């Protein structure tokens, strides 16, 4: 698969631009929330990719510890870097959406809480690798942390769910993330957006992986 060629880049750019067009021009404006609701088309796909790539970090960590093949570490690092970006976009877009709709920038809703903790673990994962004394040690340490962090995610979610039921006053706004139901066209655009952003991020992942491999060859 020759990703050096701009062929794939053009196709993916087209997919994403079409997505932007869909969202801005064709997506129906939601009755209750207004235009703000369209942020969901950014928020949800990035959330999905954020969690998916954290899973990739988990797999990369396990595979590196088993095979000791440094390319698994490159894969983990690339997934981590992109995952940080998508998770950050998710958190910020969520806050932008929440302010007009719920009245607050932030709330300790389980999904938000878990996402924030996951973001912190992502960042820690990248930092530990960066501060290790040599690349091999960095790869080992990061893999260990990657596994522990991923195992922590469901525990964090459970704790956040119970926390929410104990302190409902911390959660303002509807308990479901989207108050109104999605119409058919909204649903389609949401799925398409998810597809577009996933494809874009996978492309970036492969590119970053290749770049990382090249970095090692040069040094």
């Amino acid at each position: 698969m020759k990703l050096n060629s701009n062929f794939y880049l053009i196709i993916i750019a087209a997919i994403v631009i079409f997505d932007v067009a869909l969202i801005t021009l064709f997506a129906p404006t939601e009755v209750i929330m207004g235009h703000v609701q369209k942020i969901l088309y950014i928020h949800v796909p990035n959330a999905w990719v954020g969690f998916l790539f954290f899973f990739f970090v988990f797999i990369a960590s396990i595979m590196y510890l088993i095979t000791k093949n440094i390319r698994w570490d490159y894969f983990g690092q690339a997934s981590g870097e992109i995952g940080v970006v998508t998770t950050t976009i998710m958190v910020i877009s969520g806050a932008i959406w929440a302010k007009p709709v719920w009245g607050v920038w932030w709330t300790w809703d389980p999904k938000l809480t878990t996402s924030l903790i996951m973001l912190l673990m992502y960042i820690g994962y990248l930092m530990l690798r960066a501060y290790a004394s040599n690349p091999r040690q960095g790869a080992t340490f990061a893999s260990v942390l990657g596994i522990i962090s991923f195992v922590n995610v469901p525990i964090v979610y459970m704790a956040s769910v119970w926390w929410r039921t104990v302190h409902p006053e911390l959660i303002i706004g509807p308990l479901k993330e989207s108050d109104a139901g999605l119409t058919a066209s909204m649903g389609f655009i949401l799925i398409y957006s998810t597809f577009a952003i996933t494809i874009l991020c996978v492309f970036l992942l492969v590119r970053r992986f290749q770049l990382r491999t090249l970095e090692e060859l040069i040094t």
Partner: protein
Amino acid sequence: MIEKNSIEINNVSKSFGANPILNDCFLTIKSSERYVLLGSNGSGKTTLAKLLTTLYSPDKGEIIINGYNSDKDSEKIRSLIGYVGHNSLLYGDLSGYDNLRFFCNFYPDIDFKKQFEYLSEILNLSHLIKQKVAKLSHGEKKRLSIMKAMMSNPSVLIMDEPDAGLDANSINNLIDNFFPKVINGNITVFLTTHNSDFALSVASAMGILQSGKIEFQTQDIHQFSKVISKYQSMNESVL
């Protein structure tokens, strides 16, 4: 009688980051051999010593000690080696006696009292053993760490520059007392050093580590002086 190999280093490579330290290194040490490895600073002697202790594991190749593979049976290997390194590996806040007691807890088959009395006498430590290790001089700490290495009755002794920091008396004590009486041809020794006289006094085999490989090695004592002059000329050319 087949002479068993005590230590086998087969095609071992090791690097930290981008720098390869050992490169397709081969070495075979027979049972009861006293192998002295010479090498300039940074040549990888310490790395090789640590590979033998299982503190490091090879990137490529294998290390076999008394038939055990260092990756698969590292616990078993650790039970039959003794190691003397650059750090004393002793707890400064405890006395020598408490240190040894602690480490010997994990070797239940050892007769602690007997080993303790025997070794503290030979290494001239009897009067120091109850003092806190932090209060000992560098040379005394070194002798104590040699004692610690021998307490477990190892069949392989790995010493990384054991003479470093020792005064002439202590080195002579090693040569005249420790090696003949304690080692006594029963223990395989792997030793690194810069000191050519010390090397000549204790070695039954010698080699030079250079460019990540063992070169110019010999088990013929008549060749030792040649190896030493080769080593010294290598160092001079570097300087």
